[in-house]
Each structure stands twice: as structure tokens, then as C-alpha cells.
């Protein structure tokens, strides 16, 4: 799982190993990350991207997916 911006500070690196439950959804992932890294909850918001697309909470994740944590964007 890739991390960018402040997420790198929170996870201590630009990529982290995560264990996905079977039939895990984006929402499951978020809950499990927030338990392990409570600082995530202090962000204004964050999104999960799967294979370069923003993923809604119900998206099912597989181990072949490229998953990234997208903290609030600030480009431009």
C-alpha cells in the first residue's frame, strides 16, 4: 500500500504492508488502518485509491490491487 504526503509521516514510509481480510472492502481497510495508525483520524479527510482511481467504501480489494492512501490534496 502506497502512502503520500502526510500519510508517509503517519505510516513511517512511502509504502506499508497491510493484511487484507478476505472479501475486504475499502471501508474495512480504513478501519484497520485507523486502529493501527490513529493519527489518520486527525486528518481533515482521506481517500483510498485503488489502481489509480478513487475507491468508494464498498469497493472490494484484492492482493493484486495497487492501493494508495490519498490525504487531502494540495496541488496547483
Amino acid at each position, binding site marked *: 500500500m502506497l502512502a503520500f504526503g502526510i500519510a508517509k509521516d503517519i505510516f513511517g514510509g512511502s509504502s506499508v504492508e497491510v493484511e487484507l481480510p478476505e472479501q475486504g472492502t475499502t471501508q474495512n481497510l480504513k478501519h484497520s488502518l485507523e486502529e493501527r495508525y490513529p493519527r489518520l483520524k486527525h486528518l481533515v479527510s482521506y481517500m483510498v485509491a485503488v489502481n489509480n482511481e478513487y475507491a468508494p467504501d464498498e469497493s472490494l480489494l484484492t492482493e493484486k490491487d495497487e492501493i494508495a492512501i490519498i490525504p487531502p*490534496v494540495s*496541488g*496547483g
Partner: protein
Amino acid sequence: MNIQIKISDQPLNIQSCIDWVVTPQSGGIDVFIGTVRDVTKGKTVLRLEFEAYEAMALKEMHKIAEQAFNKWPVQKLLIHHRTGVLKVGEVPVIIAVSCAHRNAAFEACRYVIDTLKQTVPIWKKEVFEDGEVWVAAHP
């Protein structure tokens, strides 16, 4: 191809962006140039550091460009974004749009920068003398 999207860690070239969007049918070119400002909330900014999730950022910028083409009669549209360390006065982003008439050029250009700032996975960190902050991450 009438859309050009680029992310680069090298200084951007404003004139070449303008040159690229001009067509013989163009009556107006609108260009947005982002620049690094020296103060945020009263604190002096030493530099900005930009980071991109490159593959997704390119994809999202393409979507924005296509949306602009759907909404306005745009001829050519260009988005260049720079990553890495930028000093005050340097240029992190250029958006250039060409249209037959100026109204659409103004509106499309505005739409692109406004939407980019909401959806494109690029982040900037402000570096001050006494610390650093990822912009907009915390309330």
C-alpha cells in the same frame, strides 16, 4: 492531440505552453500560472515541496481536461505541474487553454485549476523557519 498533460521535476516554460495551445482558429488564450508565495498566515515561507502520485495525477488531470472539452468549445488545453522543491516566485503549475472566443477560454481555464486543486493527487508541504506543514491536511 489537443490535450497535453505533463508532470516534471524541471522548471516549467510558460512561453512554450502558450505556443503549444495557439491554433490558427484561436481568438483567445487563457493562461493560469501558479506561483510560490512568500507568506502563509503571517509566517515566512522558505520553500514549498511538491509530491505527486504520478500515474493517478496524470489520469485525473486527463479527466479534468476532457470535462473541460465537454463543457466549452476548447481547441487545445495544456496542464503542466512541477514536483520537487520550489522557492518563492517559482512556478508549480501552468494551465493554458485556447478557444475561438475569450469567454470560454476564461471559464475553461478557471474550471481546470479549481478542479485540479480538489481532485488531483499532488501535495505541497510548506517549509517555514520553525517547521513544516502539509497544506490542508489538518483542520
